[in-house]
């Protein structure tokens, strides 16, 4: 019997993988991949809630669809920033991006 907890567990696993990915990757695109993992974990949670809570039946899926659209826009902007950073600095290491360091 698969319950809500099982789906929440998978969502939590994806979320934590995304956070660790954001923290450890030095490649800027690796950080972006971590963000995508986090958003997917949140999406799995939303869809699971919409399936198991009858008062949330439609809303959870609609919120998941909005999250997918937002993730598409966010990936486009982040890649544009990464590409312009790469064009200016000839590197993609986020540790080299220290112009704003105080």
């Amino acid at each position: 019997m698969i319950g809500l907890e099982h789906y929440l567990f998978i969502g939590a696993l994806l979320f934590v993988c995304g956070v660790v990915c954001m923290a450890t990757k030095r490649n800027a695109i690796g950080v972006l991949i971590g963000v995508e993992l986090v958003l997917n974990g949140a999406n799995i949670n939303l869809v699971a809630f919409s399936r198991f809570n009858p008062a949330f039946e439609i809303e959870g899926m609609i919120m998941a669809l909005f999250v997918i659209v937002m993730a598409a826009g966010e990936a486009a902007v982040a890649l544009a920033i990464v590409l312009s950073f790469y064009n200016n600095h000839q590197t993609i290491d986020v540790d080299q991006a220290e112009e704003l360091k105080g």
Partner: protein
Amino acid sequence: MNMTVFLFWVIAGMTGACAIATVVTHNIVRAATWLLFTLGGASALFFLIGADLVGAIQLLVYVGGTLVLVVFGVMLTAQGPFISMRTSSAEWGVSAATGIALLAVLLLATFPHVPLGPPAQEGAKAPEPVVAFAPKPVEIEPRTSPFTMIIGQGFTGVGVGPAHRDPNARPKLAEAPKVPASGQFAPDVEPAPMPAPEAPVMRTHYLLPFEIVSIHLLVVLIGAAYLALTKRRREEVV
């Protein structure tokens, strides 16, 4: 063992393993490939839970659009030393410890029958487990999802979702004094009060958020194109 349970564990194990492989690999091209399998596994989970539309859109937009963007970014920047960038083991240790602690916290919140808080005193009544809402045990069976049409209607302005009646919106028609057509009151004949008409059923629709998110996506894409172009112009000047 039920087929659905078997499928869930196979797909969930594959998704989780691919997510972990995304994190631990050093090669950015391999990380993008593992991300592809993770997103595909998440979409298979959506199909399994009965959310057909979300699973299909996940495949179309996420795997077909966003991931292709990421792969293009990898191709444009993966040169020489940037393909495989190693992280120091100290950073790995700190990150892994943080991740495991975060996962433990999330699992404690997920399974609410694990007792939290200070241990109960001897003889004190055991506290009732606090459950925010008790989900109905729904047997997850493969079925045809009715939600695609409902969500489509919600996006085009038709009310969807659970119905509720606003008690304040009840029309006050019943309180008007009943005047007979002849203009004279008949005191001994009490006019039967009209039953108050029910307040209209209210449902939410999602036309406005849908339009907002469409315009938002358009603006974001134009802005992204502009951001990616300006630096090339500056390079020509320099």
